[in-house]
């Protein structure tokens, strides 16, 4: 608990957009007496309470768990997806990392396959469709063998887990100069292809998911590494290499 006696005063420049058709604009707000122990979203909550009482539309933003795990939140803060704090979702960002009197710009994810719904809310349903294309292991309920019938090397299980921690937030896409969804897609392909259970569908999965990613209009990967730099779960870039290998293997 920090003992800073007085709260901070901040200037926010926030992207407001009424709907997909609206052109949108930056709007400036002053917020005062912000406690350093507040989370970034709590700071916006306080502003929104004020806006509602003034009869204005509160700033729409997505959020739910506020624990960095559901992947619902996401804003570009001062030009960086989820803000400058490393490996941190927007909801886990706290105001103690900002200076008093700072000017903070807040914008939505920007990428053609993620159209703005309203203000900071975007439509990420393209991610679900990539999973639909093949991001699963086909095993109807009740048909599974005993869990110990297939041992899995600890290193493989751990590596699969690391890839599986992707929360589907979309920061990687927002950060990528090409608007590529490679890191997201590669994380799922890596998770499943490292496990023995994922082998039977390994080729078809990689092919279908990559093709769906392209069909959604995401850009290609040129290895800039911006994605992994903003990724709140630190999904590594080498997952993309694995995805490409699996894809090539499948396309032979």
């Amino acid at each position, binding site marked *: 608990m920090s003992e800073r006696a007085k709260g901070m005063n901040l200037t926010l420049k926030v992207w407001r957009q009424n*709907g997909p058709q609206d052109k949108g604009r930056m709007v400036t707000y002053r917020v005062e007496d912000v406690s350093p122990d507040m989370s970034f979203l709590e700071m916006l909550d306080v502003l929104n309470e004020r806006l509602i009482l003034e009869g204005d539309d509160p700033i729409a933003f997505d959020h739910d768990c506020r624990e960095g795990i559901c992947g619902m939140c996401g804003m570009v803060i001062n030009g960086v997806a989820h803000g400058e704090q490393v490996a941190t979702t927007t909801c886990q960002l706290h105001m103690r990392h900002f200076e008093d009197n700072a000017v903070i710009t807040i914008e939505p994810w920007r990428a053609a396959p993620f159209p703005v719904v309203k203000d900071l809310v975007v439509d990420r349903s393209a991610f679900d469709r990539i999973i639909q294309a093949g991001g699963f*292991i086909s095993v109807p309920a009740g048909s599974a063998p005993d869990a110990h019938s297939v041992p899995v090397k600890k290193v493989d299980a751990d590596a699969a887990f690391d890839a599986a921690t992707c929360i589907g937030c979309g920061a990687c896409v927002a950060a990528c100069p090409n608007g590529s969804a490679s890191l997201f897609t590669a994380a799922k392909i890596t998770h499943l292809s490292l496990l023995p259970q994922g082998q039977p569908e390994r080729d078809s999965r990689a092919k279908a998911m990559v093709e769906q990613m392209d069909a959604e209009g995401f850009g290609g990967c040129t290895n800039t590494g911006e994605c992994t730099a903003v990724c709140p779960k630190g999904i590594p870039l080498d997952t993309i290499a694995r995805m490409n290998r699996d894809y090539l293997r499948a396309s032979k």
Partner: protein
Amino acid sequence: MSKRNERAGEQSTSADVTGEGGRVGGVFYTEGEPIRDTKAPEGPIEDRWEKRKFSAKLVNPANKRKLHVIVVGTGLAGGSAAATLGELGYNVTSFCYQDSPRRAHSIAAQGGINAAKNYRGDGDSIYRLFYDTVKGGDFRARESNVYRLAQVSVNIIDQAVAQGVPFAREYGGLLDTRSFGGAQVSRTFYARGQTGQQLLLGAYQALERQIAAGTVKMHTRHEMLDLIVSDGRARGVIVRDMVTGEIERHLADAVVLATGGYGNVFFLSTNAKGCNTTAIWRAHRRGAYFGNPCYTQIHPTCIPVSGDYQSKLTLMSESLRNDGRVWVPVKAGDTRPAAEIPEEERDYYLERIYPAFGNLVPRDIASRAAKNVCDEGRGVGPGGLGVYLDFADAIRRLGRDAVEKKYGNLFEMYERITGEDPYTQPMRIYPAVHYTMGGLWVDYDLQSTIPGLFVIGEANFSDHGANRLGASALMQGLADGYFVLPTTIGDYLANGPYGEVDEEAVAEAETAVRSKIDKLLSVNGTRTADSYHRELGRLMWDYCGMERTEESLRKALERIPELREEFWENVKVSGQAEELNQALERAGRVADFFDLAELMCIDALHRTESCGGHFRAESQDADGEALRDDENFAYVAAWEYGEQGPILHKEALDYEYVKMSQRSYK
């Protein structure tokens, strides 16, 4: 035949501004017929589920496509149910309020999932899991249901592993397990501190596979606002498209609610911000009984409140209690930093009071103990509302690396929120509302009192009695969704078809939804919905929280209607109905929380015993432990909605297998 109870003096009733209830003449509730049949088969407990499965009628595969099932919610319960029903060939429509089914609140579960695999050979068995759950639930759960849950638990792990859920493993390649609050065997499977996430992604992927196959139609960003009951049967839902504001009707042959718990009635809880009671409350208003609404679980290890802007509380997984030691200073008012308090001036109070279980006592006991030491003025941190959870010993014993491997992500989360480093100074924790054992009443088939309405996961009241054991909610959600519901709903559907849906019933539900929205938008008062929600939450925490008394509950029952009345006269909701309007979404949820809060307090007031998470200060033993009153309260309280106040139906609980005893963790 109903008898009147609990007259609350000469208190006058609040004007019914909402058309939404209100008490008449100060009578809190009346009593109706007891519930005699829960549809559990008879015979030896280990055969009952087998029997039920065999007696369930089967639907002709060719007909399944024509049978339409609505599943509201895509958490572990709803996601697994929708996927499985799709795999079986039913025509499924699924809803969630998030932008993707993968974000349901189950994603946040950290610690693990129980299963009676006995992979460790440490004496676990289906019977032991059954026994522990009945006992842990303080003898307020049904034996038949709990036994089935323990039986099915083993299939869940198989299913999840086959789906690619990356559970923690040992070097030999087999699954690792750990022991979890209240259990002396190691039966909890886990995926680092993200077990819920990994299990939910497994269910989500199965669901997306069915969406691709065309068996499930998914509607994200849709909120269910009412249930359509036609001819006495659940036949559909009214939902609001949260992007366009459009009110839509969806009809079906059966409806499944998997909408999670209602802990957010307390405003501050470990639940996700959007968790709400609207779906089950609306169903309750339409005739579904509400089971044990007052049973709330307060989790002992959460990060304490830091200020009045606080929007939610964050849980620190209970697995931390395996290695962390809980303590407070011996002296009240000791404000020295932890490091300056010598060993002999620390009170490791859980180890002291409960030598057998120490830091691993069940949640309700650990929570109350924390409250007690804070009430004695020995709490730490701001406002004295916290106790230490100290890893110094564990770090000395196991090394920092080992501790980091086990709990690294939790420590990081703690540091991010508090700015304090738990490797060098003890964590501060305090209890917070976490889980609601209460929920819509269901029978053995998971069917509510409205035929055709099934309720699964945290939304029902079924398996945990008055207190849920750690790592058992994930188990229950997946047992319901993958294995129980798909069988039992088939029996209901096979007995159909149930005819045309009455257009009048649909129109009536639709109109009710619209007028509520119009009303909320037209009040145009001076306080936000959130500010009312905060006040309601505070009131519930103070009067119907960790400790409840007749006096506190009566106070709450006086205050809630007043506050609700003020809400309906003075709430301010900006914006329009036909757009994405988060202020409107919240206001709608808060309105339902008011009504639920009242029922919770009535339930808590009528149950004058203490049991599990429900602690009535009047009912404790000489040591301050919860004292049950089996003679008078060994029943499920199933509440029917009534315009004149709720009507109580009692379902007697019999224990044939586990002998009723007072819990003792000493």
